[in-house]
């Protein structure tokens, strides 16, 4: 246990990186999920096909592979672009933070697409009709009627997506991101205690999952407060 002393602040900073990553990826995930769901629900054949391909590809491919592809691929592409301007450049690195969050967002976004799509379909058509009849514009209907109803349905499965998201952030260590696993590796180099260090990483992630699970529970209660039976 004493092995950990001296490493606390490194782990802290590593954890902070994880948190930043989580929120960036979360934002992108919601974005991709909404776009994907819209594409799947639209009448446009091309959009449907692209969205279908998107979900099939990113749900069926190992996450680590997607990460590796994005990281190395973008590095190669960036290098090629840079070399076009300056032939002297040997290699341009793409920041793993951004390659990683983008890749993970694409992956979880493909699951979110299905979840959001299902949730949109689950919205009572009667509510939409009522909104139209009341004279609400398309945009207002979308924002004030569709989204709140859909959010309530999407929340439980989306909670699971968030859990997957936080756990997938660990994979970004493989492409060199300096978060908790990276800290662990360094700590192991000095202390020679891999078990302790990796258990600590596990505990940090367990803490994050717990926070997410509790947050989702609170949000679910809030979203469903109008359904509680009045005394």
């Amino acid at each position, binding site marked *: 246990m004493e092995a950990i002393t001296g490493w606390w602040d490194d782990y802290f900073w590593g954890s902070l990186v994880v948190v930043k990553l989580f929120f960036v990826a979360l934002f992108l995930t919601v974005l991709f999920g909404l776009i994907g769901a819209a594409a799947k629900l639209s009448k446009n054949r091309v959009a449907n096909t692209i969205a279908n391909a998107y979900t099939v590809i990113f749900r069926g491919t*190992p996450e680590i592979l997607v990460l590796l592809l994005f990281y190395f691929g973008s590095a*190669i592409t960036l290098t090629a672009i840079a070399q076009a301007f300056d032939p002297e450049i040997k290699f341009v690195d793409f920041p793993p933070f951004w390659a990683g969050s983008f890749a993970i967002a694409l992956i979880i976004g493909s699951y979110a697409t299905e979840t959001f799509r299902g949730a949109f379909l689950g919205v009572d058509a009667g509510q939409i009709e009522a909104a139209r009849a009341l004279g609400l514009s398309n945009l207002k209907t979308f924002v004030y009627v569709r989204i709140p109803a859909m959010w309530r349905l999407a929340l439980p499965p989306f909670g699971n997506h968030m859990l997957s998201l936080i756990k997938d952030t660990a994979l970004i260590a493989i492409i060199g991101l300096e978060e908790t696993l990276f800290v662990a590796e360094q700590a192991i180099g000095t202390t020679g205690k891999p078990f302790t260090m990796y258990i600590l990483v596990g505990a940090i992630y*367990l803490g994050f999952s717990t926070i997410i699970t509790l947050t989702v529970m609170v949000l679910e209660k809030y979203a469903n407060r109008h359904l509680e039976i009045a005394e």
Partner: protein
Amino acid sequence: MSFDVALIIDSIPKMLMGIGLTLQLLFLSLLLGTALAIILLLMRISGRWYLSVPTMVYIYIFRGTPILVQIFIIYYGLPQLDFVRDSIFWPILREPFGCAVVALSLNTGAYVSEIFRGGVLGVDRGLTEAGAALGLSVRHRFVYITAPIAIRLSLPAYSNDVISLQKSTALASTITLLDMTGIARTIVAETYAPYEIFISLMIIYLILTWVIQRSFGWIEKRMSRHIRSEA
């Protein structure tokens, strides 16, 4: 940027050499994981707190931490502990393959036990009551009434988990195993052609996913013969 087709044609057979390892990891972990899941399920629904509480803790930990971290703890971390090195399991835990199988099985066991539990909860209470009224013992009711129905109910979620497991086998490449992903990474390191290699690999995984989905679709169809009404 050119697309090196020759490289793809050359690399695919090399990557496919890893498919044996991939499939071994998949089937072994699936078998052991499912067996573990059944044990965990029985403990969880036993009604005895000293069985169900440890099970719930186990599931919570394994579902709340990244599988990569679990793999690292088992492969890099366990050797730190003396009693592990002295135990009979050491020959297995010393090898990366053994560690990968253990990690994947423990992880899958946690998820699948919850899937089975969902199936069990989905069995109509009236059916077990009818069994009880007929004089069937608790064990008989579980084996002849609950289990067959629960299995059918669990199939969709179970097939999703098999696909997840298949994707997780790629993580074995992080602990030196030369499964398909491991081989791909070495090729990319030599050739600097991430797009060609990784995209081809993606296609291989997608085919694998498709095979799994079709197989389960067939199984589901066979098991649901009796609920298609033909009156």
